[in-house]
């Protein structure tokens, strides 16, 4: 596996798309978080605790989650390029098995998720250290980081899945970008509250919305009154299930396909 990841890294490290998107992500996430404190709407202004442990992790994760789609584009382009340039085919001709090709790519997806999560952790940690007087809570927001990891892995695996299954790159990217919207519309039209079991919704449900808590501290993260809501724990279980499905279906499709 180490060798396979090394091969993927050789292809990826010179990708301009990746560098540009990662820089945008790395700059925008802390910047937005920093600007959050200046928001004032009428009498309402942001409380100081948004930068303090344990809340700092949740806030960064929540802000960063808006960029999942963007970072997912790296995975999308990276994976679908292999099909577009027929290098997936060439890799197999040169001696990799289809299984190795798919799981090496998923390895990259996984490492990317780890990387992005570590960055979120780092930003949360730095803001927390700068603003907290009480450091005893330093580890207590880590579960939000864990949830962010699964969420990001979910979005990236979804991109990976789309890129593998839809052979036409431009169509795959467009569908991917609008997928959240499409899923939301389908959810509204047919499934209503059960739409939260849909994959993308599940991935986003993993991130607690800290602003809800700000408005009403009694609700646990994402509750909307009179509606059945899946908790973070169950969302994580479903998310892992979907991730496994996406990877296995990708493998199944590529294995059966003449590439």
């Amino acid at each position, binding site marked *: 596996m180490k060798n396979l990841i090394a091969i993927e890294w050789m292809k990826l490290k010179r990708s301009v798309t990746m560098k540009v998107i990662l820089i945008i992500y790395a700059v925008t996430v802390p910047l937005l978080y920093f600007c959050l404190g200046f928001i004032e709407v009428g009498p309402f202004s942001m409380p100081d605790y948004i930068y303090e442990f344990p809340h700092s992790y949740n806030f960064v994760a929540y802000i960063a989650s808006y960029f999942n789609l963007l970072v997912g584009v790296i995975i999308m382009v990276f994976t679908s390029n292999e099909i577009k340039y027929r290098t997936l085919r*060439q890799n197999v001709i040169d001696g990799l098995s289809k299984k190795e090709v798919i799981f090496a790519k998923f390895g990259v997806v996984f490492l990317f998720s780890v990387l992005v999560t570590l960055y979120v952790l780092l930003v949360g940690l730095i803001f927390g250290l700068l603003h907290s007087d009480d450091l005893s809570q330093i580890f207590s927001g880590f579960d939000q980081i864990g949830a962010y990891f699964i969420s990001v892995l979910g979005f990236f695996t979804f991109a990976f899945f789309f890129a593998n299954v839809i052979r036409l790159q431009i169509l795959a990217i467009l569908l991917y970008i609008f997928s959240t919207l499409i899923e939301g519309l389908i959810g509204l039209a047919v499934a209503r509250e059960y739409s939260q079991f849909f994959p993308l919704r599940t991935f986003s449900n993993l991130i607690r919305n800290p602003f809800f808590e700000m408005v009403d501290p009694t609700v646990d993260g994402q509750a909307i009154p009179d509606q059945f809501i899946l908790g973070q724990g169950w969302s994580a279980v479903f998310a892992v299930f979907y991730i496994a499905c996406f990877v296995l279906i990708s493998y199944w499709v590529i294995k059966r396909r003449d590439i």
Partner: protein
Amino acid sequence: MCVTNITGSLQFYVGRNTGFDDFIADLHQDDHPERLISHFKLPLVPFLFFSPFSILSWLKITTVAEKVLSIKGLSKNYNDFAAVKNISFDVEQQMVFGLLGPNGSGKTTTLGMLMGVIRPSSGEFSWFNNGQKDENRKRIGSLLETPNFYPYLTAWQNLEVVAKIKGIDPPKESIDRVLKIVGLTKRSDSKFKTFSLGMKQRLAIGATLLGDPEVLVLDEPTNGLDPQGIAEIRELIIRIGKSGKTIVIASHILDEIQKVCTHAAILRDGKLLQVSTIDSLIGNQDVRLIKVGAEEMTKVKSIVEQIPSYSIYKEDDHALIIRCPRETTASMMNKFFFDHGIVLNQLSVFSESLENQFLEIIKKS
């Protein structure tokens, strides 16, 4: 007789496969001492153990006719369309094996199945007597259809990826070597997307040579090259073939197959029409074709028809191609007609090309 001589002569007799009885028979006519050596395969193994060189040679002999590739009943259907129909043939070590057929005859599909990118509908194949394992392909350098590389990587970086997949470590020497062979050393740091079609093709051929693989599988290797490039690549393939590598090469260019291959399989509409050596494909060695032309063609024709050992191979208004015994020369033919009162205005010995054979085979089936 010294040991070095043994190894030398063993090499020379590689490929002979004589039984023990022949060996005994040969012992009695001991006028060619070096011929004996060739039969020292099994019976004298203990004796050969005394020299490590001899053991090596012995091993060489036993592996020489090893099958590199064996195909049994391979087929591929795309919905209702059968692209490849029940193909079977073997490729042995050191063969330069041509897959010959017009466009759409199933050459690339066949190679695609052999290289693990197209799933066979039925049938099986085996590389190196090792089945269809993925690792087999690391021992094969292959170019299928178009050159496939990462456009944003340089030539060198692209080859680095291939080398890593093939497990060539460290890759530098190997990459520099193949870039030199295909004449891209100067462009090694240019991105693949800046390459012309011919350069892309050269890079793809270079990639197949990485790590000096035992077998090359090449699909239309001279595609997109200029005449000089075509000549260079053919020269390269011939050289590699002579160095003892096994090559499987698909082409619709008959001339190419004729120039580089030792064996050929002819495909049409996914069916295997014939498999044989190039020599036997090119022509019956007992026959010579001679083209003659004269003013009075009807007379020429009637004379030829009277001679039992001659027959008419092809005819048009101005000339006949006569099939005649091998020993017939142009001057003999000239004299023959002169004696019959005919003055020829055209006379040439025709070597039947693979092109004609190919067209004949295609026509027949």
